C-alpha cells in the first residue's frame, strides 16, 4: 500500500495553484507559458493517480494525450511570443496595447 489518493490530489492541487498564480501574477510572457506547463503537469498527476485508484488504464492513456497537447500548445505559444517580441521588443504583456494608445 502506498499513500492515500487524497494526498496525491492535494499535491496536484498545490502544483496547479502554483501554476495558476504564475499565469496570473507574472508579467513575462515566457513565465506565463511556464505556468501553463505547470498546470498541465498537475492535471497529469491527477490522471495517473486516478488510474491507480480505479485500476483503469484510461487515465494513463489520457496523460499521453495531455503531453501531445502540451507540445503543440508550447510550439504555437512560443512562436506567438516570438512574434510579439519582434514587434514590440519586449516580453511584457502590457506592451501589447497599441490599440489603447
Amino acid at each position, binding site marked *: 500500500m502506498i499513500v492515500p489518493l487524497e494526498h496525491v490530489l492535494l499535491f496536484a492541487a498545490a502544483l496547479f495553484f502554483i*501554476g495558476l498564480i504564475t499565469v496570473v501574477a507574472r508579467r513575462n510572457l515566457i513565465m506565463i507559458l511556464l505556468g501553463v506547463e505547470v498546470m498541465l503537469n498537475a492535471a497529469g498527476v491527477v490522471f495517473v493517480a486516478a488510474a491507480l485508484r480505479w485500476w483503469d488504464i484510461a487515465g494513463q492513456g489520457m496523460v499521453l494525450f495531455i503531453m501531445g497537447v502540451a507540445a503543440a500548445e508550447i510550439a504555437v505559444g512560443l512562436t506567438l511570443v516570438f512574434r510579439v517580441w519582434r514587434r514590440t521588443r519586449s516580453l511584457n504583456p502590457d506592451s501589447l496595447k497599441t490599440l489603447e494608445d
Partner: protein
Amino acid sequence: MTLYAALFYSLAAATLICTLVAVTRRVLVHAVVWMVGSLLGTALIFLLLGAPLLAGFEVIIYAGAIMVLFLFAIMLMAQEPNEPKEVRAMVRRRLFASMFWPTVWGLAGIVACMALISFDPANTTPLTAGRVSPRALGAWVFGNAWPAVEAVSLLLFAALAGARYLGLPLVHSDRPEKIGESLDMDQPPCAVNPEDER
C-alpha cells in the same frame, strides 16, 4: 510509513519546492533549469504511481524537448536588463505588491481543496501499488483510443504548420518603427532600406 510513502512525500516536497523556486526566478534561464528539476520529480512520482512509460515520456518530452524549446526561445528573445540597485529594490517592492493578492487567492484555493478533499484519516482511500507495462498502455492506446491518437497527430501537424506560418517574416506594416536602429532578424542589413541601393 512504508518506503513508498516516504519516497512519495519527499518527492512531492522536492517537486513543490523546485516549482516554487522556478516560478519566482527573474532570470529566465534559472527558471527553466529549476523547472527541469520539478519535471524530473514529477517523472519519479509517475514511476512510483505505476506509470513507467509516462515517466520516460515526462523526461523525454517535457524535461527534454519542451524545456529545450524554452531555452531556445529565451536565447532568441530575452535580454537581461542591467539595472542599478535602486531600480531592483523598486522592482522587488512592486513584485511584492503585485504578488500579494494572487498568493492570497492561491492559498485560499489550496485550503478550499483541502476542505473539499476529505481529510479525515479514516475516510482516505489508500492506493494499492500497481504497474502498467508500456506494452499494455500501448495496446490500450492504439486499440481503444485510436481516434484520439489521430486527433493528436492532426493537432501536432496543425501546430507545426501554425508555427511555420507565424514564424514567417513580418509584412511591412508589421515592423517596429525604427528599423535602422533595431536588430531586424528577417532581413539582411542591405535589404532593410531599399533607398540605399539606388
